[in-house]
């Protein structure tokens, strides 16, 4: 009976010790996972923002101010990653959280900039095409008129040079 009691108490103590270890370790693991997850979300948002800025740039938008704003988010993400590597999860989470809205703002601002630049680029292209066609038509017409005048004067000069035939 005594040995059974001893065994039970030892088992109870072992379970208690394991529980304490688990409770001590688990929050740290959970916190690290949470930080990694926040960093991943911020990283995706920053990459997505850059793709949006790049699309706007390809459409012909001036992205200088967008990239300045974007670099703020990228720098915060880098600081968050650096803090995470040192084990400073608190700073890492704060910096990642701060980077996220800036990246989202950049993405939001890049989309209308891209649309506006696309519209402007299309308008500019068709205006250029219209002017090109008009200018080409005018040029060909002028050249044709010059050619006709040249041809007439050429024939006239040939006629003047031709000896007259006198009938007898």
């Amino acid at each position: 009976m005594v040995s059974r009691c001893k065994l039970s108490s030892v088992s109870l103590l072992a379970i208690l010790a394991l529980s304490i270890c688990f409770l001590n370790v688990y929050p740290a693991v959970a916190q690290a996972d949470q930080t990694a997850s926040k960093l991943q979300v911020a990283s995706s948002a920053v990459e997505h923002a850059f793709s949006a800025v790049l699309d706007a740039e390809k459409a012909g938008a001036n992205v200088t101010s967008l990239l300045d704003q974007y670099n703020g988010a990228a720098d915060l993400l880098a600081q968050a990653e650096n803090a995470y590597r040192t084990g400073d999860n608190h700073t890492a989470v704060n910096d990642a959280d701060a980077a996220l809205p800036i990246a989202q703002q950049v993405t939001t601002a890049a989309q209308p900039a891209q649309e506006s630049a696309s519209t402007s680029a299309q308008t500019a292209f068709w205006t250029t095409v219209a002017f090109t066609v008009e200018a080409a038509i005018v040029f060909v017409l002028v050249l044709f008129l010059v050619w006709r005048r040249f041809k007439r004067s050429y024939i006239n000069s040939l006629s003047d040079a031709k000896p007259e035939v006198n009938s007898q």
Partner: protein
Amino acid sequence: MKLEGYKLVFVAVGLIGVLLIASPALAGVIRLPGGEQFSELYLLGPDNMAANYPFNIAAGQNYSVYVGVGNHLGSSAYYVLYVKFGNQTDQMPNATPGTPSILQPLYEYRFSIQDSMNWESPLTFSASNASISGNNSQINTLQINDVAFNVDKPAMWDSNSTTFKYQLLFELWTYNSQSSAISYNNRYVNLSLNLTKTG
């Protein structure tokens, strides 16, 4: 010259003229290949010149360099610059297959640069908790821009170079919007260091 000859001259002038007039519109449709596209990575000494690079380092002392990146990719680019720390046995990146060093990054910069523009930043570093014992040395903490990293990096005495050789490695990675991934750009610079005093 006969009239037919003059006619050919007029037709040729007409065609050349039409092509010249249409060139602005054609430029919007035809994309000519640009020049070589690449990124540059450079390291400068404390005076922002390619001189006086830190080499002999003592624990507890601050050393500074400038690291810079130039974008010649034809469009804006998003870069990640990793700073790694190794010893004489750690493998450097391999330029032939374009693989990065297997060392884990300590510090990183993230930034974007417009085409034909440069980015440059100062970097201050110091070693601490360092020890030298016979032919063995060890740096336990490396501080980069006021962020302290536990590195626990040993280095054996190198009798060829007569140094305890450590290396501060800068690797350039770029974001590829097609694959939505950051990949190694096959550009790195390496700063060799010799631990001389433990402070």
